[in-house]
């Protein structure tokens, strides 16, 4: 019996370690933000909310709002583009299908820095320099977010028994009714899971934004990055804690409406 338990013990140990590595930095960051001194001490020296007051200033809130807006628009666009793409890739065989797969899923495999540099060069070469700021950021973010929505939509499409649509057809539903009443309701959790992934990916991205943003239109990640040049201050800890909350709140909200948990936590996604 004892020897049998060794693998279990090892698994438990690994899980505990994993949680430690995820949670401890968060705990440290959050507690550092309550320091009474202008030093990133852990455990904090004294208690104050001044760094939080700092974090709540326009200097930080404005890029945070910008990031949320960018992330939302990028997520919606990649959901809207990803759905037809996933349909085409899953349901149809056509020339250039492999090329399209590579294009849609490529940015996932490419280091984002490479994509960022490439986009920068391209925008200059195409004479689109006047678009720098939100438009270029949006293009870049949709590009790197698309793989997520294509993926999750494709997973729900594949998980759907093909006979459902045939059954609806035989019962007198026209193809557009089938799409509206059967297909879309059954893939919507995949689509929204893709949207959530896309938002988080956009919200946490800095390697694309580094090349495509400009002063005044900066996502929060870039603002944090430039501030880091002066060292890590408790203000940053407060800002970091703030950015942590955004995706968590989003997941909590979306999870209430759609069963995206299947996509977040398990392989077997259904409906």
């Amino acid at each position, binding site marked *: 019996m004892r020897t049998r338990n060794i693998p279990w013990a090892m698994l438990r140990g690994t899980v505990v370690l994993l949680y430690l590595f995820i949670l401890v930095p968060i705990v440290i960051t959050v507690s550092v933000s309550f320091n009474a001194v202008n030093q990133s001490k852990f455990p904090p020296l004294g208690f104050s909310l001044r760094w939080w007051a700092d974090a709540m200033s326009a200097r930080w809130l404005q890029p945070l709002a910008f990031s949320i807006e960018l992330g939302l628009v990028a997520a919606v666009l990649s959901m809207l583009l990803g759905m037809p793409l996933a349909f085409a890739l899953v349901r149809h065989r056509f020339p250039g299908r492999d090329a399209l797969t590579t294009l849609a899923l490529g940015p996932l495999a490419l280091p984002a820095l490479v994509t960022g540099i490439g986009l920068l060069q391209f925008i200059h070469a195409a004479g689109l320099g006047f678009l720098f700021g939100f438009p270029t950021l949006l293009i870049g973010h949709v590009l790197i977010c698309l793989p997520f929505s294509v993926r999750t939509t494709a997973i729900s499409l594949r998980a759907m*028994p093909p*006979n*459902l649509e*045939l*059954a*609806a*057809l*035989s*019962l*007198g*539903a*026209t*193809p557009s*009714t089938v799409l509206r009443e*059967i297909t879309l*309701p*059954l893939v919507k959790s995949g689509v929204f899971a893709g949207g959530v992934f896309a938002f988080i990916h956009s919200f946490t991205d800095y390697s694309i934004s580094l090349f495509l943003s400009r002063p005044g239109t900066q996502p929060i990640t870039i603002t944090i990055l430039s501030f880091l040049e002066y060292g890590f201050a408790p203000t940053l800890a407060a800002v970091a804690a703030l950015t942590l909350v955004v995706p968590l709140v989003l997941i909590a909200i979306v999870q209430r409406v759609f069963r995206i948990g299947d996509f977040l936590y398990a392989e077997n996604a*259904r*409906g």
Partner: protein
Amino acid sequence: MADAAVSLRGVRKLFGSAAAVDGIDLDAQQGEFLTLLGPSGCGKTTTLNMIAGFLHPDAGSIHLAGRKVDDLPPFRRDIGLVFQDYALFPHMTVAENVAFGLRMRRVDKAEIAKRVAAALDLVKLTGLDDRRPLAMSGGQRQRVALARALVINPKVLLLDEPLSNLDLKLRETMRLEITEVQRRTGVTTILVTHDQGEALVMSDRIAVMNRGRIEQVADARTIYERPATRFVAQFIGNMNLLDVVAVGPGGGTTCAVRFGAQTLTVAAPQKLEAEQHVLLAFRPERSTLLARPKDDAALELAGTVRQHVYLGTRTEVHVKLTNGASCVVELANDRGGTPPAIGSAVTVRIDAADCTAYPTESCG
């Protein structure tokens, strides 16, 4: 005569260069329960999909109640379909599933409620309206699928292996229930199955398919007792096959065949060439065992008992014939008599009337 409910003429379907359905003619009469029976991959589902309108035939045409439907999309064909995996809509309740077809037909709410209740009643699911399909057993899902297909009063009901996902006992119950529902509604039904037991129990007529063609269409008794081809003979039930020689050219009705020194005239539905090897087929349960030959008009085969297989109501006796071939004799276990001991010499006897000769090559 009234138009057949379903009529296929010269229907062909190619996938690439291979014919999945290779020119079939088939009629299902009003109110008939017709079964397409055949091994896996013989084209049954493809045939059904063409009737339903999901696939377009490459040649031939399909009529429903006298109307040509080749250019009619599936949602205009008024066909009820039950799939092997039931294909219930997981995001709808049982009642919503059953109501779907009526809603598509813009039937008014009160009428829908009435007809859904009646349909659920018909399949003995009263009171389960608000369940979700995923929270039901296989048998229950099967019934929902049946109710959903029937509630629209389809011109034809198509069932594609509807019972193959159920366990044995439930399968046997559902066989009878589906047959019963079909009798009560009188809906023309085409069932697809590879299970011969299902076909024999449920159908008015059976169409046996093989490699994209129909080998025989007849009622269960004829299919079992007078198989038209060697394929049908071997596919349905157990059959002994014996290598014999055709004496004269014959076939169509009867032909004389020779086995050793014995010659006898047997049924021969297909054309046979003189002095060619042909196969003589006979059922194990139509053969008997004798201690010694009688030397009359029947076929008598000398051999040795090799094995007994006890099957409850019957015992299979495996006999090794003196010419090296083997055959099986099935004895009823009704009188408590024991079959001849293993190793004992016996004579297998079959009436000429219970034998059929087929060409050696099983070409349709």
